């Protein structure tokens, strides 16, 4: 995609998302935070994978590099979309507005500003890294790879701790940031698997050996990340479950049970959503990737990738959609954060298609050349 065309698409996305948030959500929902949690992570994860592979001298990323680095402008797009949070900010974070002790720290300008700035810094480093690494200047590009990885980790940590976590004040978890950037890399691998499929199709029968090898390595890494994701989730779960401290354990207990004072207690639908997410993100990839036949087949890998994306969506539904709302005294559960399914779906489809078009340009450029 030419930069001009991409800019038009970004403008379109901003308009549509604005319209969706205005029209359907009435500023009372978090579909933007939800979608950015997935797409910002995926875009940054793609670049982070390339950067990390270059630093570790991992050969698997070499054939994929050009395609994965197409994700760089998408980071900027996510950063711009993030600014649309401004009008709904005070309804999303009522606690920050009322309970904040230091006004400037939890104030709108600094809160949105710092996250936007970090996203843009990460975009700038990604762009510089991509420029130098594609030019083959490995001495400079390695430096920017390090800087980019730092900014990636910081950006995802901020997104988790500063954007998502305050939705559920006073809950807090120190691992939350790490689990976000691990998931970003996981999604980056899903995109890599899809790109491998594209490359296989492009070469028809004569697939170069390095592409074949990197396809297999992507599958291996995905296997690793399915375990890593589970590890992160389980670590977070068991510490909170075992500690049983009220402000912490509410995260899980309100997603497991519903009902209360005057109504019978029953299992919440978020319990099932959480379990399905765990099955899609861990059990299915972990078991199926044990077999060589699955790992070496780009088609099944794309299918598996779709399952993982679904799992990731469900996990975000669990985390963001499941945010409980309490009455003003923090005693009685009075409902959930209003995550509108339609708004999420429209925005998701829109951003996903921009991602698709952007990654597709890499292939059409090659065809033209």
């Amino acid at each position, binding site marked *: 995609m030419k930069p001009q065309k991409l800019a038009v698409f970004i403008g379109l996305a901003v308009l549509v998302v604005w319209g969706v948030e205005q029209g359907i959500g009435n500023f009372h929902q978090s579909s933007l935070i939800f979608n950015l949690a997935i797409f910002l992570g995926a875009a940054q994860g793609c670049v982070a994978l390339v950067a990390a592979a270059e630093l570790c001298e991992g050969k698997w990323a070499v054939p994929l590099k050009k395609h994965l680095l197409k994700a760089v402008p998408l980071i900027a797009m996510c950063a711009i979309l993030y600014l649309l949070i401004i009008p709904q900010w005070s309804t999303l974070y009522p606690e920050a507005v009322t309970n904040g002790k230091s006004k400037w720290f939890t104030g709108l300008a600094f809160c949105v500003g710092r996250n936007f700035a970090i996203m843009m810094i990460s975009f700038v480093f990604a762009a510089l890294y991509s420029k130098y690494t594609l030019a083959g200047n490995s001495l400079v590009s390695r430096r920017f790879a390090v800087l980019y990885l730092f900014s990636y980790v910081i950006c995802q940590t901020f997104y988790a701790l500063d954007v998502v976590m305050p939705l559920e004040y006073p809950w807090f978890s120190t691992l939350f940031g790490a689990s976000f950037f691990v998931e970003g890399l996981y999604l980056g691998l899903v995109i890599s698997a899809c790109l491998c499929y594209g490359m296989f199709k492009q070469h028809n029968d004569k697939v170069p050996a390095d592409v074949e090898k990197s396809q297999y390595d992507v599958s291996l890494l995905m296997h690793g990340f399915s375990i890593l994701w589970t590890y992160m989730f*389980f670590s977070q*779960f*068991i510490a909170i*479950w*075992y500690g*049983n401290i009220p402000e912490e354990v509410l995260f899980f207990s309100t997603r497991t049970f519903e009902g209360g004072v005057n109504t019978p207690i029953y299992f919440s639908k978020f319990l099932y959503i959480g379990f399905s997410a765990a099955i899609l993100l861990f059990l299915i990839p972990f078991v199926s990737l044990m077999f060589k036949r699955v790992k070496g087949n780009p088609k099944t890998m794309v299918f598996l990738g779709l399952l993982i994306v679904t799992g990731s969506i469900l996990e975000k539904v669990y985390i963001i959609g499941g945010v409980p709302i309490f009455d003003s005294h923090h005693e009685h559960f009075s409902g959930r954060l209003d995550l509108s399914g339609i708004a999420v779906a429209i925005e998701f489809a829109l951003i996903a298609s921009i991602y698709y078009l952007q990654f597709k340009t890499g292939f059409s450029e090659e065809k033209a050349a």
Partner: protein
Amino acid sequence: MSKEYIFDNETDFIKKLGELVKGGATEDDVEVFAPYPVHGLDAMLGKPSKLKFFTLVGALSGVTTGLALTNYTVWHWPIITSGKPIHSLPPFFVVAFELTILFGGIFSLLGFLFLSRLPNPTQIVPEKDYGNDFAIIMKEKQE
């Protein structure tokens, strides 16, 4: 008489072995000695190792033992500690996981010893040691 070929480098050795395999030699006809695992030799000769079945059995028995042991003991001595349910699975998964690894590792080792016929007391001080050379020994065809 069995024929013996000795090489001091990998390239010649692979070449010769390739010729022999083309000539119809299988894993049972030749005995091959190498100072280190030669890449691609497994694909040239014989079937893949059956070790994975031992590993699988080990891992499965480990996870079963882990879950059975923890759940049986709390059932047998049901005392509530730290306010947790009697059958609280999250902690038991940790124990089950460790036992999966333990049993899987031990079964793999035993499987390896069994499959490669070790320990072999007759070879403790071998009469012939090829050292750093590659050797191919064609066994006499018994007809």
